[in-house]
């Protein structure tokens, strides 16, 4: 069986890719992908640490219910990465705790 990707499976003729940064590192995003999808594509599965024990978290429910995938986007914290579409030039940062400097 030939190795395939989700893009192969649906014969995706996608528009031009763009870049965003995650903690300063440049990553490539396909148009229409959420921030969570963009991070997964780059092999990144966690982008938040918890308030209490500082444990890493990423996507859990994937549909906006669990709030585990909170992330900082362009300085705005507590954004659900699974809902927010990535835009060219977004500055995405790991959210630590509440995301506020407390």
């Amino acid at each position, binding site marked *: 069986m030939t190795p395939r990707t989700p893009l192969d499976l649906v014969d*995706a003729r996608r*528009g031009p890719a763009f870049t965003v940064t995650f903690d300063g590192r440049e990553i490539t995003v396909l148009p229409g992908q959420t921030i969570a999808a963009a991070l997964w594509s780059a092999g990144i599965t*966690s982008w938040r640490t*918890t308030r209490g024990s500082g444990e890493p*978290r990423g*996507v859990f429910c994937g*549909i906006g219910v669990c709030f585990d995938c909170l992330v900082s986007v362009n300085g705005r914290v507590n954004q659900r990465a*699974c809902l927010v579409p990535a835009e060219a030039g977004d500055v995405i940062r790991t959210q630590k705790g509440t995301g506020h400097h407390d």
Partner: protein
Amino acid sequence: MTDRTDGRPHLAVIGAGPAGLTAALAAAARGVRVTLVDSAAQAGGQFYRQTAPGLGARRPQALHHQWRTWERLRDGLAGHVAAGRVTSLTDHHVWFVERQSGTTGGAPASFTVHALLGPEQEEPVTVHADAVLLATGGYEKVLPFPGWTLPGVVTAGGAQAMLKGGLVLPGRTAVVAGTGPLLLPVAVGLASAGAKVAALVESADPRAFVRHARVLAAHPAKLAEGAWYAAELARYRVRTRVRHTVVAAHGTGRLEAVTVAALDGDGRVRPGTERRIPCDTLAVGHGMLPHTDLAEALGCRLDGVDVAVDDEQRTDVPGVWAAGETTGIGGAALAGAEGGIAGVSIAARLNSRIPDRSSYASAAKARAGMREFFAAVDTVCVPPARWAEHVTDDTVVCRCEEVTASAVREAVDELGAGDVRTVKLLTRAGMGWCQGRMCGPAVAGLARCPETPSRRPFARPVPLGVLAREPGEPHDTSPSTTGWDPS
């Protein structure tokens, strides 16, 4: 104020999945003006979650089932939107539905649907209507186990949503585990998209279906569907382990392996059967729960955890109908049947007529059959009876507030909590961002308390600035206009 400027009654449908879409089309075809309100960027709900348009999927159906039904719904919606009969509001996150009682002389109630414009969900929008259909769908239930908070552990539906919507996989090697019919399409979907599915771990015993042979025999299409999945799993060489469960997920900073084990007849792990499977993804789910927040805030009666409805899909609150998973988990086909019946009923009742039962007799028959089928599935696909015994004291149960199993046990055993509300007050379990949606079943199970509805006043977080606005401030969207008017 009720807006009947064109003389036609106005229905607000909350949720554009199979139930809401079918209802919107049925009502619109019968002269009702419909505003369809949904939180996603495109209609379809979770079952028909669409790939983002920018990804240019030419064969999106490769990720879907019952695609022809979707084409019919999608084209029907487009036709009604073009004709001005349906207004489709996407990216609208409904947090509250307000009911104004009729004033004098038995005037009917009217409704105000309060939404936030996404994805930031800070700008308020309202829609006024004469009737409301709640088609809010469901979300996945996941019971905790050691390691379930590791990145790489996702809900089965979440893995599928990310695949359908963003064409991404969380990793290369996945284990799909838990119980219920959702695991099959998730395992096949991940495998067909290029993931290696190392195991499909189902805690149920399929032999239990024998007790429901009569029900199964009445649903040959469901049996054929099961056979198709079995063939697909074989094609992708997915090893299926029934009467097994995941007892732990392992990893440092992210998932590296899971331990699965066989279950005995009492739902206990059989000692010595544990085996470790390396993987970077665990897609796990233990069934579904209905979204009932809007219904509860409206005062609708619940039946267990489901919104109670009558033969016409009416709730016990006049003017409020409900259809789909919110009235009981049963899949897309059942949701469509319920939505169609609701649409016919709404169109008749809003014009003070009694609906013609013969016009939805076939949908009612399908509804009865599918409810019977999923009742059988529910008795077979249950989490391991002793799941709570495998939750170690240091396992985080409430993911938001980081409350451990030991804290919940202490609240019950030492502090005398006898219900989930008291456990919540003592431990903060359920007080975080998700408002107990994720940990509710786990806390109830660990505390050995019945699962009760959570009674959330709002269906999602609302900025204080929105709540502080005076009613009537200029943020209303007239139902005859589309989108958000920031004037």
